[in-house]
């Protein structure tokens, strides 16, 4: 459970550990999605290391904050986060994507701490809204987070849900867009332009916080702002770099859905110290 204090230097060090774990997990699996996992490291770290109300030893605790990972392909960063925060043994990361493992290719509720099986894009926000409406009726004060990719915002269902959250004034819903600017086959805004993105969300009735998604201090301040906002949902547009931290992966769509081999892993780990 967050004590609402933050040790930014320690989280920065942990970000390196996370990136190394993600890449080792992917290399062992032989497949998976590094680009959007590496771009979201600080988002997950600041959520789990600062913002969320959780009990890792009681993952189904009914008052926990809910995290819906709508971009379900970034399972490497999700599982790495949950393992490092004590939801399951880190050793298990080696079984990722293997037959019989609960660490499914896309996030799955078999894994303690995962709230929704996803993988098809554009599902998370409606589900998050449903949880939030239910929580309001139950008089619960937990919050609901939905982590989305930027390419995912091309799905029309996202905007159906965006209207719902604003219409019902779901101020306990926080969407986080990992705006790494690259999707499977190229730059997001060349494939189908999302801009002006902050204005789009604002026009849909959301509070928009446009920040550097690799800056833990900025993420902390954004979460603080969300905590204090009443009457409308909040979206954090986290500007990030796809493949962040590994020079040959950064900004490259080729690393959206491809695991590093042994040599590439060694090269990447040499950069992550």
């Amino acid at each position, binding site marked *: 459970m967050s004590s609402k204090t933050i040790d930014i230097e320690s989280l920065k060090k942990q970000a390196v550990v996370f990136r190394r774990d993600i890449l080792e997990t992917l290399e062992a699996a032989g497949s998976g999605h590094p680009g959007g996992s590496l771009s979201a490291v600080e988002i997950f770290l600041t959520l789990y290391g600062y913002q969320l109300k959780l009990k890792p030893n009681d993952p189904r605790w009914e008052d926990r904050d809910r995290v819906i990972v709508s971009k379900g392909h970034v399972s490497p960063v999700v599982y790495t986060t949950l393992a490092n925060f004590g939801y399951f043994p880190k050793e298990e990361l080696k079984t990722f994507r293997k037959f019989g493992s609960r660490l499914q290719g896309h996030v799955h509720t078999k894994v303690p701490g995962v709230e929704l099986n996803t993988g098809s894009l554009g599902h998370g926000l409606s589900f998050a809204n449903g949880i939030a*409406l239910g929580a309001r009726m139950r008089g619960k004060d937990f919050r609901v987070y939905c982590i989305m990719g930027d390419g995912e915002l091309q799905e029309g269902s996202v905007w159906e849900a965006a209207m719902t959250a604003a219409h019902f004034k779901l101020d306990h819903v926080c969407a986080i867009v990992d705006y790494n600017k690259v999707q499977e086959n190229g730059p997001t805004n060349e494939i189908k332009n999302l801009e002006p993105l902050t204005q789009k969300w604002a026009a849909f009735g959301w509070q928009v916080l446009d920040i550097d998604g690799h800056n833990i201090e900025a993420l902390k301040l954004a979460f603080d702002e969300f905590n204090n906002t009443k009457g409308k949902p909040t979206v954090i547009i986290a500007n990030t770099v796809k493949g962040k931290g590994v020079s040959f992966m950064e900004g490259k769509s080729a690393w959206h859905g491809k695991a590093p081999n042994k040599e590439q892993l060694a090269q990447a780990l040499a950069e992550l110290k």
Partner: protein
Amino acid sequence: MELKPTPTRDGFGEELVALGKINPNIVVTSGDLEDATRAEYFKKEFPDRFFNLGITEQDVVGTAAGLSTQGYVAFATSFAVFLTNRAYDMIRLDVCYNNCNVKVVCSHGGVTVGEDGASAQCLEDFAIMRVLPNMKVICPADYIEAKKATRVIANTFGPFYMRTSRAPLPILTQEEDAFVIGRANVLRDGHDATVIACGVMVAEALSAADKLKAEGINLKVVNMHTIKPIDVDMIVKSAKETGAIVTAEEHQIIGGLGSAVAEVLAQYYPCPVEMVGVKDSFGESGTPAQLLAHYGLKDVDIVVAVKKVIQRKK
């Protein structure tokens, strides 16, 4: 008291209100068609537990799934075409893959939708719903059965799809008849052939049985209200007893009730089968009666199919 023909959607809407009074965990999402689905009866009684999400079918299903995680029995409602077709991926992933306690209940199944025409006449919902793991599929035959089905699916955990009718259907069942998921009801005994029907076609099957009786043919009529899980025992028993099966549904022949019955017979007791249903086409505008006749979904069509299947017995 004799009940006049009533749409099965009315049974759903009325029972939902009754359930809402005793179960505070019932919630409803709607794609702005609650007037047509009869979910508006619930809205009037329990506005705080009703969410008209506008014309956003994907959101109607996804939000219901999220609500269900908070201990609610979530009914997602709209027309059959819109939820089962347009929001298919939400039903597949959110509801079925996550095994959420969501009941997808849709009116406007079949050609008896009538004048609105093909775009609103769902003829493929049984096929695409029954293929989903965890999903159970129900199609009540009358108003009384629709009420019972609504009660049972509300009280049974997990994903359900139920199709209701816009058209008034004659009352065929009694309040005291059992309604058990996956257990078909025999409405008439006979030994020459069996008709296995659901929804509007149950009444047509009974009428066919009357016509055939005059010709000395005794038809067994089975109301297969649950299309999944299908009642394997009833199908095999009927095949053994009568040696020939006719299926009847207001749905494409491909993939629906007939296919489900044929899957069972092919595996456990092969026998001649004829299928009455829509033959790989879309619907069109017209009155329900005109359309049932045009698409070969009348009692007379069942009569022809029964005679044909009996000939094939030898």
